[in-house]
């Protein structure tokens, strides 16, 4: 079903397409430039030049590694919610809140009606797609996660805030599609922690994606299978991206009880570990998917954004993944003959 949709969109992808969840580490010179820009020590043009340089580096790196569906690497974004909150109307930068240890961040506050101010990520998407013939995913943070990771001083309920955000985020998705994006990923990592709110998270996703001509992916996070499966199949997207790298879950048993009805992206690399996965280890994780779903419905990627790894770790992890997938493709292809 989704293969047909991909073909209709003009996309021909190999069996077990490889991709990544979105973010890549920022090279040290860019990280430093961001700090200096925040202190008004360098001009915006200087920062942007480094962001473009880093983006181009990651595009070339993804091509060299042999990934099938590319991302821009989010070199121009900080936090995945704050980036959109700072650009959209209706938000204010909040006070400092501790996230752990001595780490603090500015949690955004919704203080008025949220409003899309015009394209936010579209110029980055276009610029990145211009660097490569491989498809580049459009990447936005979903309405539920944006709501959950912000304070809400304005809307009467969490649901109202979520749906208002959905109407505005749809405009960004439309703009990405208008610019030519055929695959759009809408991240909802917050969704597995309050299962009782899943119905309105799904309602919001309908607002974002209904009737739009793109292949939609939603990335959730650890624990989604345990807490919101199978209800999460209600998300109106083509592909659900879920972490399995660290999980001992018996997918076969889960899918026997409640069949998986979408394409599945298998998050097979543990992005929170410095250790580089062995090719054999990744192959085994991919095979866990192949044993339970037809291979033409499976994608392979890391289990989260790679931004917390070093540049070298991120590259080596992706290399292990791509080599493993080539081996599995061969094995699956041979078996099919």
């Amino acid at each position, binding site marked *: 079903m989704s293969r047909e949709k991909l073909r209709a969109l003009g996309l021909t992808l190999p069996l077990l397409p490889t991709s990544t969840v979105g973010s890549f580490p920022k090279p040290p010179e860019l990280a430093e430039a961001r700090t200096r820009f925040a202190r008004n020590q360098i001009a915006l043009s200087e920062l942007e030049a480094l962001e473009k340089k880093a983006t181009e580096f990651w595009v070339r790196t993804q091509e060299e590694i042999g990934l099938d569906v590319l991302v821009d690497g989010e070199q121009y974004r900080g936090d995945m919610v704050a980036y959109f909150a700072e650009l959209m109307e209706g938000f204010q930068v*909040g*006070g*400092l*809140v*501790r*996230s*752990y*240890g*001595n780490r*603090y961040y500015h*949690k955004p*506050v919704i203080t008025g009606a949220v409003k899309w101010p015009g394209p936010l990520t579209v110029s980055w998407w276009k610029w990145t797609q211009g660097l490569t013939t491989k498809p580049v995913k459009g990447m936005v943070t979903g309405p539920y996660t944006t709501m*959950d*990771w912000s*304070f*809400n*001083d304005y809307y009467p309920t969490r649901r109202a805030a979520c749906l208002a955000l959905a109407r505005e985020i749809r405009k960004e998705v439309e703009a990405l599609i208008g610019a030519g994006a055929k695959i759009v990923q809408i991240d909802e990592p*917050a969704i597995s*922690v*309050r299962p*009782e709110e899943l119905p309105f998270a799904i309602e919001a996703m309908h607002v974002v994606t209904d009737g739009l001509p793109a292949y939609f992916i939603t990335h959730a996070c650890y624990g989604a299978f345990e807490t919101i499966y199978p209800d999460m199949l209600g998300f109106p997207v083509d592909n659900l991206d879920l972490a399995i790298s660290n999980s001992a879950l018996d997918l076969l048993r889960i899918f026997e009880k409640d069949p998986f009805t979408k394409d599945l992206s298998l998050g097979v690399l543990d992005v*929170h570990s410095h250790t580089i996965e062995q090719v054999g280890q990744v192959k085994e994780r991919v095979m866990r998917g192949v044993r339970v779903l037809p291979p033409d419905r499976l994608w392979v990627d890391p289990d989260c954004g790679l931004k917390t790894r070093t540049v070298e770790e991120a590259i080596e992890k992706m290399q292990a993944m791509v080599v493993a997938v080539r081996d599995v493709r061969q094995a699956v292809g041979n078996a099919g003959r």
Partner: protein
Amino acid sequence: MKLILTNAGSYPRIGDAPELQRHRRAYAQWERKEIGEAAFRKVEDEVTAEVIREQIVAGVELPTDGQIRWYDPYSHFARGLEGVEVNGLLRLFDTNFYFRQPVVTGPIRRRRSILVSEYEFARTVSSRPVKPVLTGPYSLARGSILEGGYQSFTALVFAYAEVASEEVTDLAAAGASVIQVDEPAILGHPEDAALLHEALALLSRAKGSASLVLHVSFGDAAPLYADLQGLPVDVLSLDFTYSSKLPRLIAEVGAFKPLGLGVIDGRNTRLETPETVFPVLDEVLPKLPTEWGYLGPSCGLEFLPRERARAKLETMRRLRDAYLGGHA
């Protein structure tokens, strides 16, 4: 009717103004070994005194020490125990706050009392009685990885309950008249209500003349309300922000224990109004078996920016005074 204003636990240790960032700077200097342990502990003392004062000025009658010294509610206890190591970061329920997960490797024993020195310091700098707060044995066990020392999750709960009851004994002996035990994890595991009951019975036997408050948060307490009422604690304190049905349920079922009403949302910046708080009080207060209850935030206030935490407490006092003034 008397509503005693309290805090549920943590309080933001820094604010946005440079003069309110002393703790953050000292922490970084201490991590880089630019200042010694004693100098950092002195800053923790000063900030503890500061946040106790801030709570009292805002109207709180039963403050906490703000848990300024806690890395998080789990590893703070784990670090004081033999047989428990501290592992990587894990998300705390549905928050954006991360705690370091305890890993149990062998028999759990206290190296020393964990909270008594903190409590004693807080008492010396507070003009009001201070309420010590401990993470309960059930939630500690739920948040831990069990690698050795115990054969089962149940055995681990009782091991934690043993050391928690020693803490309760020490705190009561040090003069604490109200001791709060946090058990947020039970709301996600209603099937373990009987286990929680047995574990809390150990703490209850250790409390002496102190009053034991059970606080549950980060979830809807309504499905478990009847079981919670039967637990061996003196006061039941509830997070009202996850359930619109809880006040009605209490109005229907009644309350056999004094209640703590966590109606001030400790997770969102929006300030409460009479329209949101008074209907809850209208439903619940007539059902209290005592002429008093606690009014407080739904959870510790560390999830809010500092100025908003203070504003929440001030709002709480204004609402309490307006409500009781109008219902005297």
